[in-house]
């Protein structure tokens, strides 16, 4: 720390020419950035723009392949997360870094527990008091002695935030801190962020929610495809401009939903309850229709789609497929009935990393690819499946034998879409179909959804990307705390309405 530096203007953190390469992917490409003391600096960009990668460089998780970071004028090259902690940089990551088996207090103080010098015993009293103080600042009441595994998702998120606040960092980096929080909790968090700024600390704030960015940030840096687009003062811009910079073109041109004639009801959900969240959801999906599912993260979207796919047992209610009772007890049942599924977590629940593209594509339809007396797999049939779907989805791979883990995210996603189509394409359940996919692939995927519905498929699509949700679906169903709060059709189908339903719970197009 050099106190001689003028904290008002001199940047605390200077990033120059930062490049991060992963095998075959350049996640960050020559990014320059400066963070000043006492400012909230928003980092915005579409999914996969490189925000999280940048944060992980600051947090010492990734080592850059080129470029430097300077902290108060001195080169800052953390080799591990503890280096970041030592330099007063606290990071709240998007994936939780909590210990489910430990208590809240132990989590908040992980790695810096106050302890007696003599007996090495942890001072639990001090930790509890500290936690209460932190939670007081955040305006929540969480028992410091509760086990983290027993907390709700939003409480866990708050513990994560308290952990970073407690670290007393000069630079606090927050990656989507509000994703799981309620409206009031968000307000309080934004207050805390403002207070931190007023104390002279720097906050790097990453969020998809532009209203939050406009509420707290002083400046914003826009990233697109790993490159810096621009850094600008929030006061000198507006949401539309920011969105245009993020997307790189006008939104309207991105999505194009062709009008499709609506057919008969293919899938019907009747008062379905499932999992911890989903309550009493009724829904019809028609042939040729795309039903978009919206809502804040964790409002029950995952439960809804997994219930349809047989991955989550129903607690109440029932489903019909083509007028027949549909009660899949496993995903295998759903697949056999022609329901295709795309999971939102491509890396952990989507690709089979050690398998080839061909094997990834055919894994859901193996029973159909057997031939002969011994019912062995037919290589020819597999090749045919690959050729058919691979070309239809324009998968760019060196061939069916390439490992899927060697493909780019967009191409992996196309393979997974092909996998979802292969069971028959009558009902498609798509979670975040374009997450982490570049703009070109996005357009291709949207075009494909159009083609499929034109051919009579019924699609349920979950997307956290509002323009996509509105642009590609015929009807948007908004969930809030596991219940349907909005069914938006025709003119009601606006961003405002989705946001209002999702965040306030006000009902539109659905009886109270």
């Amino acid at each position: 720390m050099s106190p001689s530096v003028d904290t008002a203007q001199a940047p605390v953190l200077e990033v120059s020419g930062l490049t991060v390469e992963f095998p075959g992917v350049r996640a960050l490409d020559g990014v320059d950035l400066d963070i000043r003391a006492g400012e909230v600096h928003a980092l915005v960009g579409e999914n996969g723009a490189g925000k999280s990668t940048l944060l992980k460089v600051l947090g010492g998780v990734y080592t850059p392949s080129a470029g430097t970071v300077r902290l108060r004028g001195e080169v800052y090259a953390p080799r591990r997360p503890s280096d970041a902690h030592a330099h007063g940089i606290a990071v709240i990551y998007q994936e939780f870094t909590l210990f489910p088996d430990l208590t809240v207090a132990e989590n908040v103080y992980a790695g810096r527990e106050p302890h007696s010098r003599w007996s090495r015993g942890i001072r639990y009293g001090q930790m509890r008091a500290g936690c209460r103080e932190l939670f007081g600042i955040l305006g929540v009441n969480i028992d410091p002695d509760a086990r983290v595994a027993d907390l709700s998702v939003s409480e866990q998120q708050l513990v994560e935030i308290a952990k970073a606040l407690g670290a007393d960092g000069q630079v606090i980096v927050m990656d989507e801190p509000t994703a799981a929080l309620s409206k009031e909790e968000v307000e309080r968090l934004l207050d805390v962020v403002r207070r931190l700024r007023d104390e002279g600390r720097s906050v790097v704030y990453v969020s998809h929610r532009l209203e939050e960015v406009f509420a707290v940030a002083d400046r914003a840096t826009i990233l697109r495809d790993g490159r810096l687009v621009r850094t600008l003062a929030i006061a000198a811009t507006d949401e539309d401009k920011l969105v245009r910079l993020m997307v790189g073109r006008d939104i309207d041109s991105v999505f194009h939903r062709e009008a499709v004639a609506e057919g008969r009801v293919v899938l019907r959900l009747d008062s379905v309850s499932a999992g911890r969240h989903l309550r009493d959801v009724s829904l019809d999906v028609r042939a040729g229709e795309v039903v978009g599912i919206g809502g804040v993260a964790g409002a029950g979207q995952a439960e809804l789609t997994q219930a349809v796919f047989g991955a989550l047992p129903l607690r109440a209610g029932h489903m019909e497929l083509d007028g027949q009772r549909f009660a899949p007890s496993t995903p295998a049942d759903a697949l056999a009935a022609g329901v295709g599924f795309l999971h939102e977590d491509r890396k952990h629940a989507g690709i089979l990393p050690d398998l080839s593209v061909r094997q990834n594509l055919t894994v859901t339809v193996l029973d159909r690819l057997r031939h002969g007396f011994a019912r062995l797999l037919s290589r020819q049939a597999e090749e045919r499946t690959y050729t058919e779907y691979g070309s239809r989805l324009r998968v760019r791979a060196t061939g069916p034998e390439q490992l899927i883990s060697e493909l780019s995210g967009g191409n992996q996603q196309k393979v997974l879409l092909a996998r979802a189509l292969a069971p028959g394409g009558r009902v498609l359940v798509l979670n975040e179909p374009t997450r982490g996919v570049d703009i070109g692939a996005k357009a291709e995927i949207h075009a494909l959804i159009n083609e499929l519905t034109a051919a009579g498929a019924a699609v349920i699509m979950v997307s956290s990307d509002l323009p996509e949700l509105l642009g590609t679906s015929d009807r948007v169903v908004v969930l809030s705390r596991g219940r349907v709060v909005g069914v938006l059709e025709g003119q009601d189908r606006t961003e405002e309405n989705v946001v209002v339903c999702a965040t306030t719970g006000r009902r539109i197009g659905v009886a109270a």
Partner: protein
Amino acid sequence: MTSDTALPPAPGAQAPAPTTETQRRWARQHSIGTLWETWGITAVLVVLLAASPLLSSDFLTVANLQSVLRESAYLGIVAAAMTLAVMNGTFDLSVGGQLALVSVTTLMGYAAGGTGLAALVAVLTGMVCGAVNGALVTAMRVPPFVATLGMLFVFRGVAYVLTQDGPKTLPYSEIGSPFVKIGGLNIAGIPLPFLIMLACYGAVWVLLRRTATGRRIVAFGSSPEAARFCGISVHRIRMLIFVVIGVSVGIAALTYISRVWTADGSAQDGFELRVIAAVVLGGTSLKGGKGTLIGTFSAVLLVGVLNDLLVSRGVDASYQRVVLGCVLITALAIDGLRTRFAAPGSFARMLPRRRREAPAP
């Protein structure tokens, strides 16, 4: 991460890229990294065989080679089935107990009804053992590690109980029995146990590469969570894997006990660890999803040859342990370092850069 171009599959492809699909496939399948991954341990085996005359003058005789092959068979047969389990991300620690128990019941079966009954009893006992393991893991949801560890004690204990009055034994008068031929016969100079082992590798290969079940086994090992959403039932395949292992132990026990003639609860102590060591040495990842049968096959023979060479050089038994342990740890350390410091797949990417995790979506 949003670059949409497919990665070059191999160092060769970075030069003038192959134009046709066939060429590309050839380049991918024959990249140095891929070749090493599949054939590496086999190459070591070949080198060792080539060097063997320097190490032992007795090694390259027909009788000695027959002996090595005959002796490796029972380990190899179980290792083939264990490869399935490890590729699925699990393993079976009870195979030593199973081998002891099956050997005992097989000899009892022989005493009661001759060769035919013995063979039937061997396979059935193995199958039952596997089904018990499978039921614990699937129906009772006990983690495989503990379930099979517990059953290791139980199977051995049952074998001990059955041999309270002394080990079960094949009497010398049965020297001409077809049962003895299972372990002793040579067909065209090749020992029958080795032929049985080859047949088992063939069967497991077909299961692994040509059936839907095999594909599901590997898919699950590669990513359990993704496999769930591909409609793969872990319970069905786990049950099958444990039963296959049981049957393999049954077959292995036939080739074993027809050579050794006697068994009790203590037979082949530590067998489970030798089997898993062979599978891992063969390049199958304990994390699941990745591995080759040819690797296991070669690793089994490698251990057999190495052991034979050490014995014929008169190396003290305590040093033999140290050598075999070091070989195992070296192979794994190299594997561990490789996955730690390099991205999997390509040889070219392995060297210059440190590994970083793929970015989160």
